[in-house]
């Protein structure tokens, strides 16, 4: 019940944040995202580790090559387990702080789902596509949102870093 309250209040704190549930439902129904194997728990130990692995992979993919601009710090909430993760920009790139209690004040906030992140890190979906489909919702200043999308729009398109993405052909459609 408390998870429901935490999830429910998101819809007010981050207006229409729960629309990501509808977007995921649509994407799964249309086979854009894989079906899930339900678990009676938010996630079992195994799927928790799998989720953490995905988050770390996402941080790696978002890291810039040496010499590029510093990556942006932001906070990501995975809606199913209500798991907050901070992506912290430092000298050695983006690092994750998984299972933090809340986003840091001033952070750009991303609301998404576990399968969305897994699809991104497995190159089945770019962040830009996910954003367009409502599978990732962004909350911050206009500048933060624009900057984030400008940098990470094509993450998930391939295994290359963002700096390489401009040389990649556009993907025709989601797989």
């Amino acid at each position: 019940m408390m998870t429901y309250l935490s999830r429910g209040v998101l819809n007010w704190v981050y207006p229409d944040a729960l629309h990501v549930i509808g977007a995921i439902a649509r994407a799964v129904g249309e086979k854009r995202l894989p079906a899930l194997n339900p678990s009676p728990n938010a996630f079992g130990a195994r799927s928790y580790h799998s989720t953490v692995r995905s988050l770390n992979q996402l941080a790696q993919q978002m890291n810039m090559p040496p010499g590029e601009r510093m990556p942006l710090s932001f906070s990501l909430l995975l809606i199913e387990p209500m798991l907050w993760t901070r992506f912290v920009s430092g000298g050695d790139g983006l690092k994750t702080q998984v299972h933090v209690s809340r986003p840091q004040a001033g952070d750009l906030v991303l609301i998404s789902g576990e399968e969305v992140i897994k699809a991104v890190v497995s190159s089945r979906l770019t962040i830009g596509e996910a954003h367009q489909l409502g599978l990732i919702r962004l909350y911050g200043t206009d500048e933060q949102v624009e900057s984030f999308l400008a940098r990470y729009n094509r993450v998930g398109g391939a295994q290359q870093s963002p700096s390489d993405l401009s040389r990649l052909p556009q993907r025709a459609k989601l797989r």
Partner: protein
Amino acid sequence: MPRCLLQTSVLAGIFAAGLVLPAPGQNAPAQDVGISGTLDKDKADTAHKRPQVYSPYANRDFPTRPFFGDTHLHTSFSMDAGAFGARLTPRDAYRFARGEQVTSSTGQPVKLSRPLDFLVVADHSDNMGFFPDLFAGKPEMLADPTGRKWYDMIQSGNGAEAAIEIIVAFSHNKFPKDLMYFPGTRAYRGAWQETIAAAEHYNEPSRFTAFIGFEWTSNTGGNNLHRNVIFRDNGDKASQVEPFTVYPPFGSDNPVDLWKWMEAYEKKTGGSVLAIAHNGNLSNGTMFPVVEEFGKKLDREYAETRAKWERLYEATQTKGDGETHPFLSPNDEFANFERWDKGNLDGSVAKKQEMLEFEYARAALKNGLKLARELGTNPYKFGLIGSSDAHTGLAAMEEDNFFGKTTPQEPSPHRMAATFIDNPKTGVKVMDWQVSSSGYAAVWANDNTRASLWDAMQRKETYATTGTRMIVRFFGGFDFEPKDAENRLPAQVGYTKGVPMGGDLHAAPQGKSPTFLVAALKDPIGANLDRYQIIKGWLDKNGTLHEKVYDVAWSGNRKPDANGKLPSVGDTVDLANATWTNTIGAPELITVWKDPDFDPTQPAFYYGRVIEIPTPRWTAYDAKRFGSKPLPGTQMTITERGYTSPIWYTPAK
């Protein structure tokens, strides 16, 4: 055993008219009969003397169709619904019920298969409108230090913590007094006036009825004693008061005080209100007391007052079915249906078997007979309706279009596996898949207006459905004959020779037993019917209560076995594709049944239960849609059903 089956689908259409339209020359003053709920021979005779005209539908004055609606729907104005993420307002709820497509609070387009005929937005009266105002940062909210703190928490990204603080403070009665949306405050008045304004805006007589209402939410100890209050009146009267609440100093958790408030409303405005008791299955044995309530012994005044104000009972809704329970009705093969019997509303106290008798409809109807003998009045002489209790603003209770009980339970690949209530201390655990896609209220009214629908509720000419829109007739009298079931327009016969559901039969004529003309027609886009049953409860001279289920009409050529048990209708559900076929069952059932066990000295009640053939449950549609695998034990099929209001038999004194 009398039974009649008319399977021809062509005839079904004709029969539809029979259920809703009178026979040629039918001109009985059925409205009088229906409204009184008591057959009046003089009036019936007078009716027959009216000049007959060619059109069978001319001069008809009894209810000819049931109107379907929801008497129990929450929007973002309810504190818990808001906390669960509902963003839809009362206006959105009415628009949706009228048949418009809306976007749900999870961003999903949604529309009903068919518009509903009426809706009661019944938001919780305590703190009505609080949540939208808090998040909007209304000045009244920010003037209070705690309100300011919560708002700042929200703005700084700690909204979830703020929400939990709010809910905990509220549930532990530690809510800041100055922040309570009490009756009499400007903020509360604003929320109530907007509730009224929404209903006024969308109320369209003869097309769609938007009732004004609220839910009084007594929940002491986690035991659900909620009541939905419905106004017959328009905004001019309803706006003269503000809803009765639970929290002190203005409110009370005792239903007796709610009834006093209702009395005061009628006295002040000249208007009319009724209350519908919430499904009692989460009251932990407190919804239908037989000895005392709130420390006061039940007496005649209690019985009379409750019977006066609580005309209807919510027999089925998203939090489970409340008709009966296998423990109470071990011989009823259909009793194990959509059960929620683990504990009370918040899971703080586990269920004990001895509680069940005082929270299910059939047991209450039985105990009512006994209390009537002891107190002189039956406090539990209620009719039956179903409604949703959805907290989404969406009265979407179709299995293939189920939008859940709360916003996080709207369609998603996850909802079948999620946990709704889990209290490790008490062991009370309810999974989301156990949420029931139920139900609707069917009301036999003359017109689709507030007055006409409310009057029908008042006289209990209603039935509950679990979400299907089957059409069900149920008439009782002493003179129905088998040939009455051959009439293609049974309503006229029913109203002329008997009383409709919700009515009374008194003092059986010498040598006669109650007879019942029953008819049911499938939902036009739904499943065929398995059987029509009559459930009888009675009190013998020794003060012992009894119940019995009679199969009175069924599909096919099935024969009851030596024990009287009717074989199963079968099952055509294709789970993989979430579909079924109407190759079994019947589109319509009609018969006349005579009570074979009647004793004229024993008070009794009779109500109809109509069962559909098995169909896919919402979980099956989800599994198909999302390709997800259900958890072990997940119920994947359902036998939708309808429960009529009873007809009571009272012996001669």
